[in-house]
């Protein structure tokens, strides 16, 4: 009886999807779903208007689990299947009554997060959730003050799960986002947010006391991925906003649009990326002291070490990688306490996902490289907005082997624009399919794109 009801529910949703205009998706095959791609690549839009798609997981059977930040018929996880192999989603089964961003599959379980908790669902041999109404709650009580609230997740191969707990502020000011408001000294947010927390992937009801603060000084990491080649966690940070709004005498609107970099970091236990005390300047290629802490756009982290100012002491206390024997070698000390990014990208493009590609479908240059979904900027105004694309960074031996490049573009619609609400689609999640195709989600219309390569 239960199976019958389930089947009927699925059927209803798939019929509703057809009725809501999904037929238009079928014709998209010829124009790569409106995307601009490198030669040899094609894209289809598998689905649209089903929830507000954030992150995505693809099963070995090629079926999709999409986490939605808006409930779709009251459900926040959408299991989508393409039954006849034409690349278009035919059925949608919704479960989970919570919104959120994180979703991934590991060791026979589907993991998913709300903005405060992390759940997991046991999968059967076809990677279908056995009991969608009774997940295991593995993490709870994570702080949510509605800013940077996405609790994105990634798992390693040793039974650990890593959770982004985004800082609930822009720059840890006494008054958030306020003209000339100084930074709080030290920044109290860092004790429970502004970093990555590590928990066990199989223990129930864990909270802060059960986990460890794995890495700190990281403002908001919506995109993170475990790199199986280097066996380390890679993250993409959303850099701080409003340098001009809050410090107009130091930064004009053009400078504010280009600073700070969006940054990729390779993290280890004890890593410290320096937020809120510094930001990374992609033009000077330096960590620069934030204006909230006395910076002027020029004074670097190395200058702070030389002057031995108060920020240095705070960072020393926070960092677990500081070696006292290096005190004479200032540069070594500076890098050890607060690390440099692995890659620096243009400001404000809003990286929402990172995926290390391990498939064989794409040409050799893409193997073990990183795809990044850039959601697109808002804080570049009054300059034109930027991002709204999927970028690629080639890697060799665990390190970037070339500059970043645009891989998939025109999600927003193609022409230059000034307001994010004009963007038709905004890349948000990335996943690799069993055949090596790349899946990209969009949280404007909930579209799911499948990008493939043919020689």
């Amino acid at each position, binding site marked *: 009886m239960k199976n019958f009801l389930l089947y009927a529910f699925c059927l209803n949703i798939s019929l509703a999807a057809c009725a809501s205009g999904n037929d238009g998706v079928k014709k998209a095959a010829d124009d790569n779903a409106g995307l601009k791609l490198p030669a040899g690549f094609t894209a289809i839009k598998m689905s649209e208007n089903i929830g507000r798609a954030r992150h995505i997981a693809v099963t070995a059977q090629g079926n999709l689990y999409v986490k939605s930040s808006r409930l779709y018929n009251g459900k926040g996880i959408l299991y989508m299947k393409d039954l006849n192999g034409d690349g278009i989603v035919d059925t949608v089964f919704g479960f989970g009554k919570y919104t959120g961003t994180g979703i991934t599959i590991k060791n026979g379980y589907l993991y998913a997060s709300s903005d405060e908790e992390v759940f997991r669902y046991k999968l059967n041999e076809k990677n279908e959730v056995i009991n969608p109404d009774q997940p295991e709650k593995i993490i709870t009580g994570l702080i949510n003050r509605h*800013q940077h609230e996405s609790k994105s997740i990634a798992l390693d191969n040793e039974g650990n799960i890593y959770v982004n707990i985004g800082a609930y502020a822009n720059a840890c000011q006494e008054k958030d986002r306020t*003209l000339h408001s100084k930074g709080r000294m030290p920044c109290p947010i860092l004790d429970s947010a502004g970093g990555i927390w590590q928990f066990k992937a199989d223990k129930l009801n864990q909270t802060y006391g059960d986990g460890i603060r794995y890495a700190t000084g990281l403002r908001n990491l919506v995109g993170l991925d475990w790199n199986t080649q280097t066996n380390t966690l890679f993250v993409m940070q959303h850099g701080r906003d409003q340098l001009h*709004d809050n410090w107009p005498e130091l930064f004009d609107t053009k400078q504010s649009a280009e600073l700070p970099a969006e940054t990729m970091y390779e993290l280890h236990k004890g890593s410290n990326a320096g937020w809120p005390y510094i930001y990374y300047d992609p033009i000077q290629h330096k960590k620069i002291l934030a204006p909230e802490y006395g910076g002027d756009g020029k004074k670097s982290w190395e200058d702070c070490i030389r002057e031995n100012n108060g920020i240095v002491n705070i960072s020393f206390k926070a960092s677990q990688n500081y070696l006292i024997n290096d005190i004479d070698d200032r540069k070594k000390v500076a890098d050890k306490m607060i690390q440099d990014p692995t890659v620096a990208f243009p400001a404000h493009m809003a990286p929402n996902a990172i995926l290390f590609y391990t498939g064989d479908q794409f040409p050799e240059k893409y193997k073990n490289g990183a795809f990044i979904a850039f959601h697109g900027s808002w804080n570049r*105004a009054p300059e034109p907005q930027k991002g709204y694309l999927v970028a690629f960074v080639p890697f060799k031996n665990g390190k970037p082997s070339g500059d970043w490049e645009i891989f998939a573009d025109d999600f927003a619609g193609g022409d230059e624009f000034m307001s994010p609400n004009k963007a038709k689609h905004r890349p948000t999640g990335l996943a690799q399919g069993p055949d090596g195709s790349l899946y990209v989600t969009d949280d404007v219309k909930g579209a799911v794109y499948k990008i493939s390569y043919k020689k």
Partner: protein
Amino acid sequence: MKKTFLVLFFISTALLLKAQSLKASMDRGQKVYEKVCLSCHMADGGGVPHLNPPLSQTSYVLGDKSKIIYIVLHGMTDRIPIEDEYYSNNMAAHTDLNDQQIADVLTYVRNSFGNKATAVTVADVKAVRTKKK
């Protein structure tokens, strides 16, 4: 006849002066908007999906004036729905703006982005500023 003419003359002059004063307020308000509000609420008043609310034809902007005056004065850090959507970013309190600037920018906002509403006056702003919460 002369009396009617005089009455009409005074009424039309008053309307003209009011329109000019409204335009002057909006021009000043636009400058405030571009300097202080645009970076978050955007040049078209459309805001940023899920982060910064729009100012275009929402009940907050078109409704009771004291509500938006209060928000400009005190900022917004609560998680409240605006036309059935939630917006994650905090808004700063604008202690950097005086009564005239707030009146002007809100008059501009209430008559731009597809909005049509009454002007906000200095007296309106003063009333909210001095009200004990």
